[in-house]
């Protein structure tokens, strides 16, 4: 699968309160959460992001709380994936579990500027900047996690273990 979109740039240590503030956690409706996505980091993001765009961030993206509402709001806002120097561990797990593609690739983060076109080969983890002529290789995911993704995330993993058909 190939994803294509434009880059939105964020800094280091973007926390889950910046991604989706607790004042909006009185619901878990994805569309409602999407309306406030990244609000305290960039109040214009949710209204201006286009379907398929990428978030490009520094180190420790998604630090702070375990709220799955954070990756849910990003996915529901239409973001195609996140490229960061590194991810906080609970955010990493949550993104994998709900099927939001994310990649660790410090070299790509360094090269990408606001509004750049990005093309990602999801299976290979290859991040291409067509206008600049660069291609970067993201850190490969552990085998177990690749299998989780291939099998459709944690919900299907559990369904299969319980002897049910995948969704």
């Amino acid at each position: 699968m190939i994803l294509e979109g434009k880059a939105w740039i964020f800094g280091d240590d973007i926390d889950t309160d910046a991604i989706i503030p607790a004042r909006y956690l009185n619901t878990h409706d994805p569309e409602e959460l999407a309306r406030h996505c990244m609000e305290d980091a960039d109040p214009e993001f949710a209204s201006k992001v286009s379907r398929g765009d990428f978030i490009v961030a520094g180190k420790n993206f998604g630090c702070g709380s375990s709220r799955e509402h954070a990756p849910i709001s990003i996915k529901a806002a239409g973001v195609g994936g996140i490229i960061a120097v590194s991810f906080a561990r609970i955010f990493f797990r949550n993104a994998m579990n709900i099927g939001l593609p994310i990649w660790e690739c410090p070299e790509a983060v360094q090269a990408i500027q606001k509004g750049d076109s990005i093309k990602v080969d999801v299976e290979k983890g290859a991040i291409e900047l067509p206008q600049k002529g660069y291609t970067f290789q993201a850190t490969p995911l552990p085998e177990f996690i690749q299998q989780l993704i291939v099998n459709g995330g944690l919900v299907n993993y559990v369904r299969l273990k319980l002897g049910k058909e995948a969704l």
Partner: protein
Amino acid sequence: MGQTMVQKILARGAGKKSVEPGEIVNTKIDLCLGNDITAPVAISEFNRMGAETVFNTSRVALVPDHFTPNKDINTAKQVQIMREFAEKHRIKYYYEIGKMGVEHALLPEEGLALPGEIIIGADSHTCTYGALGAFATGVGSTDLAAAMALGEAWFKVPPAIKFEYNGKLPQWVGGKDLILYTIGEIGVDGALYRAMEFSGPAMEEMSLEGRLSMSNMAIEAGAKCGYMEPDGKVLEYAASRAAREYEPVYGDRDAEYENTFRFEVSNLEPQVAFPHKPSNVKPVSKAQEVHIHQSVIGSCTNGRIEDLRQAAGVLRGNKVPPSLRLIVIPATQEVYSQALKEGLLEIFMEAGAAVSTPTCGPCLGGHMGILAPGEKAVATTNRNFVGRMGDPQSEVYLSSPAVAAASAVAGYIIHPGEVAK
């Protein structure tokens, strides 16, 4: 090569002799928990998984503590989902308000977090139970759903970093100050994906409450867990409260650590984390002239009885200025009741504080003390991110209960020794 306590707990849970850092293991879990923000999402995922029953009705804890007593109709609906799920699946450990406490203060009291156990919670501060010698870590809602269905979870075995605290802690300096100091030294991703092991003479001297505050904030350094090997204090506490059988685990003498930090703490001052990162830490003497509008004493980090005693010790005979709000939130009913018996609540009220029923409330900007634009609060909570306690233009300064109490009296951030009578 020997193994750390965490490696040995995970190996036992996975039915293996040993595990290596980086290895992915599937283990049984001893307890999983969720709250009123995370459990409703987990319940809908649990249903999507096609699960008909929870794996064990006494190994799931559901604690509606964040927006409770419910602040509005939407949050009441979230708790309604939890309550109905708990009834339908006969969840033994569901806590309605009146019995409820802030989850990470409540579960140790209830004997539900025990040495040697594997505990996951859909709340990042689940790492608190590391102070009791458990492997405990925060996960998301889908992970909680899977755990409720299967009674197991996958983990990447974390490498460990050892923190050794030497010397003797001065008066007014405790666990909160030590963990803030540590995060200040290593940064908010200083222990990313790692296990933090706390050790040394100052840790051995420290009360359980102080240790729980330290493990609680391991996540603020990015850690997977923060723990101490169980000693006599832990074993005595666990034995007096345990709700089930457990078996402590200890690391090997030749366990491997990725790194070791040694800190001399005998001259440490109380610490304050400035906005907007828990790592933006300064000694209290460098924090003067920060005038505050509100002081919050409570949360899963510092709402235990020792925390309230410390605050009362500073507030006794003092008054909070007319324009300043002091909010004290005992973390559990047991703490609340004990504070009442000891006369602490009276000291708070005479000082001019609002005393609340247990709730996470203002810590995450939920309710019970939200900040307006431009306002500053000192708080014994765990995060000072932009907008954490209210408006994105407000500021939160993290400290110990003693500093928060003293600052409430002075009107600006100050060393408790300058205020206590």
